[in-house]
Protein backbone atom coordinates (compact mmCIF):
# COMPACT_ATOMS: atom_id res chain seq x y z
CA UNK A 1 0.00 0.00 0.00
CA UNK A 2 1.44 3.35 -1.02
CA UNK A 3 1.59 6.28 1.37
CA UNK A 4 -1.19 7.94 -0.61
CA UNK A 5 -3.43 4.92 -0.17
CA UNK A 6 -2.67 4.76 3.51
CA UNK A 7 -3.69 8.40 3.85
CA UNK A 8 -6.89 7.82 1.91
CA UNK A 9 -7.77 4.81 4.04
CA UNK A 10 -7.11 6.75 7.22
CA UNK A 11 -9.25 9.58 5.99
CA UNK A 12 -12.03 7.14 5.09
CA UNK A 13 -11.89 5.45 8.47
CA UNK A 14 -11.96 8.81 10.21
CA UNK A 15 -15.10 9.75 8.29
CA UNK A 16 -16.80 6.53 9.36
CA UNK A 17 -15.73 7.12 12.94
CA UNK A 18 -17.02 10.70 12.93
CA UNK A 19 -20.32 9.67 11.29
CA UNK A 20 -19.52 11.68 8.19
CA UNK A 21 -21.32 10.07 5.25
CA UNK A 22 -19.36 8.54 2.43
CA UNK A 23 -20.43 10.03 -0.91
CA UNK A 24 -20.08 8.48 -4.39
CA UNK A 25 -16.96 10.35 -5.44
CA UNK A 26 -15.17 9.91 -2.14
CA UNK A 27 -12.40 7.37 -2.01
CA UNK A 28 -13.52 4.09 -0.47
CA UNK A 29 -11.90 0.68 -0.05
CA UNK A 30 -12.79 -1.65 -2.90
CA UNK A 31 -14.36 -4.04 -0.43
CA UNK A 32 -16.64 -1.31 0.91
CA UNK A 33 -17.77 -0.59 -2.63
CA UNK A 34 -18.39 -4.26 -3.46
CA UNK A 35 -20.19 -4.96 -0.22
CA UNK A 36 -22.46 -2.00 -0.82
CA UNK A 37 -23.22 -3.00 -4.37
CA UNK A 38 -24.12 -6.46 -3.10
CA UNK A 39 -26.25 -5.28 -0.23
CA UNK A 40 -28.03 -2.39 -1.96
CA UNK A 41 -28.82 -4.42 -5.05
CA UNK A 42 -30.00 -7.33 -2.93
CA UNK A 43 -32.32 -4.89 -1.25
CA UNK A 44 -33.48 -3.53 -4.64
CA UNK A 45 -34.08 -7.02 -5.99
CA UNK A 46 -36.15 -7.83 -2.90
CA UNK A 47 -38.39 -4.85 -3.64
CA UNK A 48 -39.13 -5.82 -7.21
CA UNK A 49 -39.42 -9.55 -6.64
CA UNK A 50 -41.61 -8.63 -3.68
CA UNK A 51 -44.06 -7.04 -6.10
CA UNK A 52 -44.95 -10.46 -7.47
CA UNK A 53 -46.56 -12.30 -4.54
CA UNK A 54 -48.66 -9.26 -3.70
CA UNK A 55 -49.35 -8.38 -7.30
CA UNK A 56 -50.84 -11.86 -7.45
CA UNK A 57 -53.87 -10.58 -5.52
CA UNK A 58 -54.40 -7.13 -7.04
CA UNK A 59 -56.86 -8.38 -9.65
CA UNK A 60 -58.77 -10.35 -6.98
CA UNK A 61 -58.83 -7.83 -4.14
CA UNK A 62 -62.24 -8.11 -2.46
CA UNK A 63 -63.25 -4.43 -2.53
CA UNK A 64 -62.32 -1.38 -4.58
CA UNK A 65 -60.81 0.28 -1.53
CA UNK A 66 -58.55 -2.73 -0.94
CA UNK A 67 -57.70 -2.91 -4.61
CA UNK A 68 -56.42 0.66 -4.91
CA UNK A 69 -54.52 0.42 -1.61
CA UNK A 70 -52.80 -2.81 -2.63
CA UNK A 71 -52.03 -1.53 -6.11
CA UNK A 72 -50.53 1.66 -4.69
CA UNK A 73 -48.44 -0.42 -2.32
CA UNK A 74 -47.11 -2.69 -5.04
CA UNK A 75 -46.37 0.40 -7.10
CA UNK A 76 -44.43 1.89 -4.19
CA UNK A 77 -42.29 -1.23 -4.21
CA UNK A 78 -41.39 -0.59 -7.84
CA UNK A 79 -40.44 2.94 -6.77
CA UNK A 80 -38.34 1.64 -3.91
CA UNK A 81 -36.58 -0.78 -6.21
CA UNK A 82 -35.89 2.14 -8.50
CA UNK A 83 -34.47 4.35 -5.73
CA UNK A 84 -32.23 1.52 -4.57
CA UNK A 85 -30.97 0.60 -8.03
CA UNK A 86 -30.13 4.28 -8.50
CA UNK A 87 -28.18 4.26 -5.23
CA UNK A 88 -26.29 1.17 -6.36
CA UNK A 89 -25.56 2.81 -9.71
CA UNK A 90 -23.61 5.56 -7.95
CA UNK A 91 -21.06 2.85 -7.14
CA UNK A 92 -20.24 2.25 -10.78
CA UNK A 93 -22.55 -0.53 -11.90
CA UNK A 94 -25.55 -0.27 -14.24
CA UNK A 95 -29.11 -1.33 -13.59
CA UNK A 96 -28.88 -3.78 -16.45
CA UNK A 97 -25.83 -5.43 -14.94
CA UNK A 98 -27.73 -5.74 -11.68
CA UNK A 99 -30.74 -7.26 -13.45
CA UNK A 100 -28.40 -9.70 -15.13
CA UNK A 101 -27.10 -10.79 -11.71
CA UNK A 102 -30.66 -11.29 -10.48
CA UNK A 103 -31.76 -13.22 -13.54
CA UNK A 104 -28.76 -15.52 -13.56
CA UNK A 105 -29.26 -16.36 -9.90
CA UNK A 106 -25.94 -14.79 -8.94
CA UNK A 107 -27.61 -12.11 -6.82
CA UNK A 108 -29.85 -12.95 -3.89
CA UNK A 109 -33.05 -11.32 -2.69
CA UNK A 110 -35.08 -11.70 0.45
CA UNK A 111 -36.14 -15.34 0.60
CA UNK A 112 -39.54 -14.46 2.04
CA UNK A 113 -40.80 -13.67 -1.44
CA UNK A 114 -40.35 -17.27 -2.49
CA UNK A 115 -43.40 -18.27 -0.47
CA UNK A 116 -46.79 -18.32 -2.22
CA UNK A 117 -49.69 -15.98 -1.41
CA UNK A 118 -52.42 -18.57 -1.09
CA UNK A 119 -55.37 -16.62 0.31
CA UNK A 120 -56.40 -12.98 0.63
CA UNK A 121 -55.30 -13.05 4.27
CA UNK A 122 -51.73 -13.52 3.05
CA UNK A 123 -51.87 -9.96 1.76
CA UNK A 124 -52.70 -8.84 5.28
CA UNK A 125 -49.98 -11.00 6.78
CA UNK A 126 -47.36 -9.71 4.36
CA UNK A 127 -48.17 -6.09 5.07
CA UNK A 128 -48.24 -6.64 8.79
CA UNK A 129 -45.30 -9.04 9.25
CA UNK A 130 -43.07 -8.74 6.22
CA UNK A 131 -43.32 -4.97 5.97
CA UNK A 132 -43.12 -4.77 9.74
CA UNK A 133 -39.84 -6.69 9.69
CA UNK A 134 -38.58 -4.69 6.71
CA UNK A 135 -39.31 -1.37 8.41
CA UNK A 136 -37.25 -2.33 11.45
CA UNK A 137 -34.31 -3.03 9.18
CA UNK A 138 -34.89 0.04 7.04
CA UNK A 139 -35.21 2.52 9.89
CA UNK A 140 -31.78 1.37 11.01
CA UNK A 141 -30.47 1.86 7.48
CA UNK A 142 -31.57 5.51 7.25
CA UNK A 143 -28.46 6.03 9.33
CA UNK A 144 -26.12 3.90 7.26
CA UNK A 145 -22.72 5.30 6.28
CA UNK A 146 -23.13 5.45 2.50
CA UNK A 147 -24.93 8.71 1.61
CA UNK A 148 -27.04 7.63 -1.39
CA UNK A 149 -28.19 4.48 0.39
CA UNK A 150 -29.13 6.40 3.52
CA UNK A 151 -31.06 8.98 1.47
CA UNK A 152 -32.93 6.27 -0.45
CA UNK A 153 -33.86 4.69 2.87
CA UNK A 154 -35.22 7.95 4.26
CA UNK A 155 -37.49 8.27 1.26
CA UNK A 156 -38.52 4.65 1.44
CA UNK A 157 -39.29 4.74 5.16
CA UNK A 158 -41.51 7.78 4.64
CA UNK A 159 -43.48 5.98 1.96
CA UNK A 160 -43.60 2.64 3.72
CA UNK A 161 -45.45 3.91 6.70
CA UNK A 162 -48.81 3.09 5.15
CA UNK A 163 -47.80 -0.40 4.05
CA UNK A 164 -47.77 -2.03 7.42
CA UNK A 165 -50.96 -0.29 8.51
CA UNK A 166 -52.64 -1.51 5.35
CA UNK A 167 -51.71 -5.09 6.22
CA UNK A 168 -52.65 -4.89 9.86
CA UNK A 169 -56.00 -3.35 8.99
CA UNK A 170 -56.74 -6.28 6.66
CA UNK A 171 -55.90 -8.73 9.45
CA UNK A 172 -57.97 -6.80 11.97
CA UNK A 173 -60.97 -6.73 9.64
CA UNK A 174 -60.70 -10.47 9.13
CA UNK A 175 -60.49 -11.05 12.87
CA UNK A 176 -63.62 -8.97 13.39
CA UNK A 177 -65.40 -10.93 10.68
CA UNK A 178 -66.85 -14.42 10.44
CA UNK A 179 -65.31 -17.55 11.92
CA UNK A 180 -64.10 -18.48 8.45
CA UNK A 181 -62.38 -15.12 8.02
CA UNK A 182 -60.69 -15.39 11.38
CA UNK A 183 -59.40 -18.85 10.49
CA UNK A 184 -58.08 -17.43 7.26
CA UNK A 185 -56.17 -14.79 9.21
CA UNK A 186 -54.74 -17.30 11.70
CA UNK A 187 -53.73 -19.63 8.88
CA UNK A 188 -51.87 -16.81 7.14
CA UNK A 189 -50.08 -15.88 10.36
CA UNK A 190 -49.11 -19.53 10.85
CA UNK A 191 -47.54 -19.70 7.42
CA UNK A 192 -45.83 -16.29 7.38
CA UNK A 193 -44.52 -16.04 10.94
CA UNK A 194 -41.39 -18.15 10.64
CA UNK A 195 -40.37 -16.92 7.19
CA UNK A 196 -40.72 -13.37 8.58
CA UNK A 197 -38.43 -14.26 11.48
CA UNK A 198 -35.91 -15.55 8.97
CA UNK A 199 -35.89 -12.21 7.15
CA UNK A 200 -33.34 -10.83 9.59
CA UNK A 201 -30.82 -13.38 8.38
CA UNK A 202 -28.66 -15.94 10.18
CA UNK A 203 -27.92 -15.61 13.88
CA UNK A 204 -25.03 -13.34 14.83
CA UNK A 205 -22.87 -16.35 15.55
CA UNK A 206 -23.43 -17.67 12.02
CA UNK A 207 -23.49 -14.42 10.07
CA UNK A 208 -20.41 -13.96 7.94
CA UNK A 209 -20.95 -10.32 7.06
CA UNK A 210 -22.16 -8.80 10.31
CA UNK A 211 -18.82 -7.83 11.88
CA UNK A 212 -17.56 -5.98 8.81
CA UNK A 213 -20.95 -4.36 8.20
CA UNK A 214 -21.06 -3.08 11.76
CA UNK A 215 -17.54 -1.72 11.52
CA UNK A 216 -18.43 0.24 8.40
CA UNK A 217 -21.68 1.36 9.97
CA UNK A 218 -23.50 -0.22 7.07
CA UNK A 219 -25.56 -1.92 9.75
CA UNK A 220 -25.94 -0.47 13.18
CA UNK A 221 -27.67 -3.39 14.83
CA UNK A 222 -27.07 -7.12 14.53
CA UNK A 223 -29.50 -9.60 13.01
CA UNK A 224 -30.42 -10.98 16.42
CA UNK A 225 -31.02 -7.55 17.90
CA UNK A 226 -33.34 -6.64 15.05
CA UNK A 227 -35.16 -9.97 15.29
CA UNK A 228 -35.74 -9.40 18.99
CA UNK A 229 -37.21 -5.97 18.26
CA UNK A 230 -39.56 -7.55 15.74
CA UNK A 231 -40.83 -10.16 18.19
CA UNK A 232 -41.33 -7.65 20.97
CA UNK A 233 -43.17 -5.32 18.67
CA UNK A 234 -45.39 -7.91 16.99
CA UNK A 235 -46.54 -10.05 19.93
CA UNK A 236 -48.83 -7.40 21.48
CA UNK A 237 -50.22 -6.58 18.03
CA UNK A 238 -51.22 -10.22 17.57
CA UNK A 239 -52.79 -10.31 21.03
CA UNK A 240 -54.81 -7.21 20.29
CA UNK A 241 -56.65 -8.81 17.40
CA UNK A 242 -56.88 -12.24 19.00
CA UNK A 243 -54.35 -14.12 16.86
CA UNK A 244 -51.84 -16.62 18.18
CA UNK A 245 -48.22 -16.55 17.05
CA UNK A 246 -47.31 -20.14 16.15
CA UNK A 247 -44.43 -20.53 18.60
CA UNK A 248 -45.03 -22.48 21.80
CA UNK A 249 -41.78 -21.15 23.27
CA UNK A 250 -42.77 -17.54 22.85
CA UNK A 251 -43.15 -15.93 26.27
CA UNK A 252 -42.27 -12.79 28.16
CA UNK A 253 -38.98 -12.93 30.04
CA UNK A 254 -39.27 -10.63 33.01
CA UNK A 255 -35.56 -10.63 33.68
CA UNK A 256 -34.50 -9.65 30.16
CA UNK A 257 -37.46 -7.36 29.67
CA UNK A 258 -37.92 -9.07 26.31
CA UNK A 259 -39.69 -12.06 24.82
CA UNK A 260 -38.01 -15.45 24.58
CA UNK A 261 -38.82 -17.33 21.43
CA UNK A 262 -38.31 -20.70 19.76
CA UNK A 263 -35.65 -21.99 17.42
CA UNK A 264 -35.85 -21.09 13.74
CA UNK A 265 -35.69 -23.93 11.23
CA UNK A 266 -32.42 -22.87 9.59
CA UNK A 267 -32.44 -25.81 7.27
CA UNK A 268 -35.58 -24.44 5.63
CA UNK A 269 -33.98 -20.99 5.50
CA UNK A 270 -30.90 -22.23 3.63
CA UNK A 271 -32.97 -24.40 1.33
CA UNK A 272 -35.00 -21.38 0.22
CA UNK A 273 -31.93 -19.13 -0.01
CA UNK A 274 -30.27 -21.71 -2.23
CA UNK A 275 -33.16 -21.58 -4.66
CA UNK A 276 -35.35 -24.45 -3.52
CA UNK A 277 -38.26 -22.58 -1.98
CA UNK A 278 -41.82 -23.06 -3.20
CA UNK A 279 -41.73 -20.17 -5.71
CA UNK A 280 -38.06 -19.39 -6.49
CA UNK A 281 -38.33 -20.54 -10.07
CA UNK A 282 -41.60 -18.73 -10.81
CA UNK A 283 -40.34 -15.47 -9.33
CA UNK A 284 -37.18 -15.35 -11.41
CA UNK A 285 -39.02 -16.59 -14.48
CA UNK A 286 -41.53 -13.73 -14.13
CA UNK A 287 -38.75 -11.15 -13.87
CA UNK A 288 -36.84 -12.60 -16.80
CA UNK A 289 -40.00 -12.68 -18.91
CA UNK A 290 -40.81 -9.04 -18.15
CA UNK A 291 -37.26 -8.02 -18.97
CA UNK A 292 -36.97 -10.05 -22.17
CA UNK A 293 -40.39 -9.07 -23.46
CA UNK A 294 -39.63 -5.44 -22.69
CA UNK A 295 -36.41 -5.37 -24.66
CA UNK A 296 -37.98 -4.29 -27.95
CA UNK A 297 -39.81 -1.51 -26.11
CA UNK A 298 -36.66 -0.17 -24.48
CA UNK A 299 -34.74 -0.43 -27.74
CA UNK A 300 -37.47 1.36 -29.68
CA UNK A 301 -37.59 4.21 -27.20
CA UNK A 302 -33.83 4.62 -27.51
CA UNK A 303 -33.95 4.52 -31.29
CA UNK A 304 -36.72 7.12 -31.31
CA UNK A 305 -34.79 9.38 -28.94
CA UNK A 306 -31.74 9.22 -31.17
CA UNK A 307 -33.78 10.00 -34.27
CA UNK A 308 -35.37 12.97 -32.55
CA UNK A 309 -32.01 14.27 -31.37
CA UNK A 310 -30.65 14.03 -34.91
CA UNK A 311 -33.68 15.84 -36.31
CA UNK A 312 -33.26 18.57 -33.75
CA UNK A 313 -29.57 18.96 -34.51
CA UNK A 314 -30.32 19.21 -38.23
CA UNK A 315 -32.89 21.98 -37.81
CA UNK A 316 -30.94 23.97 -35.25
CA UNK A 317 -29.35 27.21 -36.43
CA UNK A 318 -25.60 27.28 -36.08
CA UNK A 319 -25.46 30.11 -33.58
CA UNK A 320 -28.22 30.56 -31.12
CA UNK A 321 -29.14 33.87 -29.59
CA UNK A 322 -30.41 33.37 -26.11
Amino acid at each position, binding site marked *: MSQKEINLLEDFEQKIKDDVKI*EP*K*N*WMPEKYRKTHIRQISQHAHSEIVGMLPEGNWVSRAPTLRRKVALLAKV*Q*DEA*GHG*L*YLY*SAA*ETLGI*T*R*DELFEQLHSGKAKYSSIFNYPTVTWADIGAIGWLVDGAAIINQVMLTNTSYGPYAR*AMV*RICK*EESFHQRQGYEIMMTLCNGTEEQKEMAQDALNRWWWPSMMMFGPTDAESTHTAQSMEWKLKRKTNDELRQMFVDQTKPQADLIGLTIPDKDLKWNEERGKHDFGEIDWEEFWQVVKGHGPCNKERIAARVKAYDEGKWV*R*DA*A*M*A*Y*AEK*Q*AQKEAATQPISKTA
Partner: protein
Amino acid sequence: MKNWPLWEVFIRSKNGLEHRHCGSLHAADANMALENARDVYTRRMEGVSIWVVESKHVVASNPENSGELFEPAKDKVYRHPTFYDLPDEIKHM
Protein backbone atom coordinates in the same frame (compact mmCIF):
# COMPACT_ATOMS: atom_id res chain seq x y z
CA MET B 1 -28.82 -1.44 -28.28
CA LYS B 2 -27.85 1.13 -25.66
CA ASN B 3 -29.60 1.32 -22.30
CA TRP B 4 -31.77 4.26 -21.32
CA PRO B 5 -29.45 6.89 -19.83
CA LEU B 6 -29.61 8.04 -16.23
CA TRP B 7 -31.23 11.38 -15.33
CA GLU B 8 -31.13 13.46 -12.17
CA VAL B 9 -34.43 14.81 -10.90
CA PHE B 10 -34.97 18.11 -9.11
CA ILE B 11 -38.32 18.99 -7.59
CA ARG B 12 -39.75 22.28 -6.34
CA SER B 13 -42.03 21.21 -3.52
CA LYS B 14 -43.95 24.49 -3.49
CA ASN B 15 -43.68 27.94 -4.94
CA GLY B 16 -41.20 30.01 -3.05
CA LEU B 17 -38.80 27.12 -2.52
CA GLU B 18 -35.89 26.09 -4.72
CA HIS B 19 -35.76 22.95 -6.79
CA ARG B 20 -34.00 20.26 -4.80
CA HIS B 21 -32.35 17.09 -5.96
CA CYS B 22 -34.56 14.16 -5.04
CA GLY B 23 -33.18 11.20 -6.96
CA SER B 24 -32.53 9.67 -10.34
CA LEU B 25 -34.21 7.50 -12.93
CA HIS B 26 -33.78 6.09 -16.41
CA ALA B 27 -35.42 7.48 -19.54
CA ALA B 28 -34.77 7.41 -23.26
CA ASP B 29 -35.32 11.13 -23.80
CA ALA B 30 -36.06 14.38 -21.99
CA ASN B 31 -39.81 14.12 -22.38
CA MET B 32 -39.86 10.64 -20.97
CA ALA B 33 -37.57 11.72 -18.17
CA LEU B 34 -40.01 14.46 -17.18
CA GLU B 35 -42.97 12.12 -17.31
CA ASN B 36 -41.16 9.39 -15.41
CA ALA B 37 -40.11 11.93 -12.81
CA ARG B 38 -43.72 13.00 -12.43
CA ASP B 39 -44.84 9.39 -12.03
CA VAL B 40 -42.00 8.27 -9.78
CA TYR B 41 -41.27 11.28 -7.59
CA THR B 42 -44.53 13.23 -7.21
CA ARG B 43 -47.02 10.48 -6.34
CA ARG B 44 -47.67 12.04 -2.94
CA MET B 45 -48.01 15.69 -3.93
CA GLU B 46 -44.30 16.27 -3.46
CA GLY B 47 -43.95 18.81 -6.22
CA VAL B 48 -45.22 21.70 -8.32
CA SER B 49 -42.32 21.85 -10.77
CA ILE B 50 -39.73 19.42 -12.08
CA TRP B 51 -36.28 19.75 -13.63
CA VAL B 52 -34.49 16.83 -15.16
CA VAL B 53 -30.94 16.77 -16.42
CA GLU B 54 -29.07 13.89 -17.90
CA SER B 55 -26.60 12.74 -15.28
CA LYS B 56 -23.64 12.89 -17.64
CA HIS B 57 -24.12 16.66 -17.96
CA VAL B 58 -23.62 17.26 -14.27
CA VAL B 59 -20.11 18.51 -13.62
CA ALA B 60 -18.96 17.68 -10.12
CA SER B 61 -16.01 18.85 -8.09
CA ASN B 62 -13.42 16.25 -7.25
CA PRO B 63 -13.24 15.33 -3.55
CA GLU B 64 -9.47 15.09 -3.94
CA ASN B 65 -9.44 18.87 -4.38
CA SER B 66 -11.67 19.46 -1.39
CA GLY B 67 -8.75 20.84 0.57
CA GLU B 68 -7.95 23.74 -1.73
CA LEU B 69 -11.58 24.28 -2.69
CA PHE B 70 -13.27 24.43 0.67
CA GLU B 71 -10.74 24.70 3.49
CA PRO B 72 -9.68 28.31 2.74
CA ALA B 73 -13.17 29.55 3.71
CA LYS B 74 -12.78 28.12 7.19
CA ASP B 75 -10.77 30.94 8.76
CA LYS B 76 -12.78 33.76 7.22
CA VAL B 77 -14.97 34.02 10.28
CA TYR B 78 -15.37 37.75 9.73
CA ARG B 79 -17.93 36.86 7.04
CA HIS B 80 -20.32 35.72 9.77
CA PRO B 81 -22.39 38.09 11.92
CA THR B 82 -21.35 36.41 15.18
CA PHE B 83 -17.80 37.66 14.57
CA TYR B 84 -18.80 41.14 15.65
CA ASP B 85 -19.32 42.29 19.22
CA LEU B 86 -22.32 44.47 19.95
CA PRO B 87 -23.66 45.86 23.22
CA ASP B 88 -26.34 43.65 24.80
CA GLU B 89 -28.87 46.48 24.53
CA ILE B 90 -29.04 46.00 20.80
CA LYS B 91 -31.28 42.98 20.39
CA HIS B 92 -31.61 42.77 16.64
CA MET B 93 -29.04 43.76 14.08
